[in-house]
């Protein structure tokens, strides 16, 4: 019988592994806000606007992508029931290559610099494909009935496929050859990225964290067993269907139904939670689920009402709802559970039986700060949506709110990591001063 692994410190990766991702990610969202301030209302003038492509990837890869990579690196050993090999090295490689590649990709796209894009191709490509391979290989050892592990594996495969399509599209920008099916490939790329990589990952993680943090009933077994795999197959089928509009609408409707079932189930479970007191993460998740439902409704409505599909506001609305409303809300909410707990957990395990007192999660990240940032985030979301209809008057306020929200998020993560460094310093000092010191520190 193989020895089941533990969740102890010898299994958890060093705290720097996830933190380096969490500390960099908000900077990319702040940069996206600056890009919007600089471009102003013109940013949404066309979906092929270079600055818009740059801003989109500052958010999807820079903010969401890096945070998700960091969180997966942290969760992987637990989900796989086995430690990851050389986590610090893997994190350093993925983080350094990834960050560099994203900077190159986004500057190259936004300012039309083919040379930057030529460097971005191999650097970003190797970071993401290396990461996807790492996840799939590590999860080989996971228990077969662990549904989170299954969904995480499917999401990683989708990340790989999204990246390969993205690299193909990018080679078009970098080398200037004319890609024939650019629009169809872009649609497939963004659907796999947002619904496959982000959507399936959020679904898999929800199975674990929604019941755990809120003491809700578990997700129904029918959903946990089938939903992620079903969505994965539907998404794959979109590739050969790109030349048949009718089939595409059928697949799209089934996907919409799948995500609606997920969002509605999550909202229902959350309303049945046994932990009733206010919770910032819960609000972030509710906002995320409502945005997802609105995106589904908008997409379905546009299938029935062709004028909607043609409207200039349609694509930007869908994009803001999915990226800022759904993905960023959920991710932001998760950070407020993950970061304080990790700081506490690592300090607690290092302190020994009589080391200095470790602050609790609320002292590490005061609830009031998280709550304030949350309101700013939702104000930014609302004003971004409104700015699509009133670009002249609302684009700048929306960009400022969005930048301020992400700056505050960054400061909150910094605050927690400072506390880690301060207390860790005390722990090292206490252990250096022999047996008498710890008593004084208390």
């Amino acid at each position, binding site marked *: 019988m193989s*020895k089941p692994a533990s*969740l102890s410190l010898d299994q958890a990766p060093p705290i720097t592994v996830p933190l380096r991702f969490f500390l960099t990610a908000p900077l990319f969202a702040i940069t996206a806000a600056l890009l919007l301030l600089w471009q102003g209302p013109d940013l949404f003038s066309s979906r092929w606007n270079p600055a818009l492509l740059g801003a989109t990837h500052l958010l999807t890869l820079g903010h969401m992508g890096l945070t998700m990579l960091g969180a997966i690196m942290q969760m992987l050993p637990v989900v796989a029931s086995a430690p990851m090999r050389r986590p610090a090295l893997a994190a350093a490689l993925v983080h350094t290559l990834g960050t560099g590649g994203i900077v190159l990709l986004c500057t190259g796209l936004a300012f039309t610099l083919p040379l930057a894009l030529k460097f971005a191709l191999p650097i970003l490509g190797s970071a993401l494909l290396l990461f996807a391979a790492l996840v799939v290989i590590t999860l080989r050892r996971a228990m077969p009935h662990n549904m989170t592990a299954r969904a995480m594996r499917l999401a990683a495969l989708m990340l790989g496929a999204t990246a390969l399509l993205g690299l193909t599209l990018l080679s078009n920008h970098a080398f200037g050859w004319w890609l024939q099916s650019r629009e169809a490939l872009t649609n497939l790329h963004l659907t796999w990225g947002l619904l496959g990589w982000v959507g399936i990952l959020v679904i898999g993680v929800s199975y674990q964290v929604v019941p755990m943090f809120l003491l809700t009933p578990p997700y129904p077994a029918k959903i946990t067993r089938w939903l992620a795999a079903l969505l994965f197959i539907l998404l794959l089928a979109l590739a050969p269907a790109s030349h048949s509009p009718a089939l595409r609408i059928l697949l799209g409707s089934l996907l919409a139904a799948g995500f609606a079932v997920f969002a509605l189930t999550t909202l229902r479970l959350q309303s049945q939670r046994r932990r009733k007191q206010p919770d910032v993460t819960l609000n972030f998740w509710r906002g995320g689920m409502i945005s997802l439902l609105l995106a589904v409704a908008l997409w379905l409505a546009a299938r029935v009402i062709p004028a909607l599909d043609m409207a200039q506001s349609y694509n930007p609305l869908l994009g803001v709802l999915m990226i800022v409303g759904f993905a960023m809300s959920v991710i932001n909410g998760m950070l407020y559970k993950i970061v304080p707990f990790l700081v506490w957990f690592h300090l607690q395990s290092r302190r020994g039986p009589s080391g200095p007192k470790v602050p609790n999660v609320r002292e590490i990240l005061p609830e009031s700060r998280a709550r304030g940032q949350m309101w700013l985030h939702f104000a930014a979301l609302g004003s971004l949506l409104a700015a699509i209809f009133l670009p002249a008057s609302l684009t700048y306020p929306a960009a400022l709110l969005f930048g301020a929200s992400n700056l505050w998020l960054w400061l909150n993560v910094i605050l927690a990591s400072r506390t880690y460094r301060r207390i860790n310093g005390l722990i090292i000092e206490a252990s250096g001063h022999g047996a008498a010191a710890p008593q004084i520190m208390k």
Partner: protein
Amino acid sequence: MTTISNFLAPDHQRCDNLFAVAEAAAARGDWDNAATGFVHFQNAMLHHFAMEEEVMFPAFETRTGMTQGPTAMMRSEHRQMTDLLNQMAEAAARKDSDAFLGDAETLLIIMQQHNMKEEQMLYQMADQVLAGELEELIGRMRAMD
């Protein structure tokens, strides 16, 4: 048939419920109910740990010869949770809601991950290796109070 899984897993649920009651009272600032609720919760947790550490784990260790395996891990997590319970008891005595709720949040995460590992792994392994003596073991756990 009663198994380790379906005897001990529902006890996790019972502890979760008691946790929610005590935490909600503390969040309302209702310290009378928080204090009694917390005592119920703490007793339920310690009782659960005792059933495992005095009956189920030793039987598992004897049968498998694994003393440094999963049970050692679970015991050390029990110590971690007991420390947090003690801190919460002190916070409840001081009516310090930030300390109480902060430790409650931390305890909940540890507790849920711990329960998941027991329910998805250890209890199922125990049900297999201890198949012949389930009735006797569960009887002994039932008799503890």
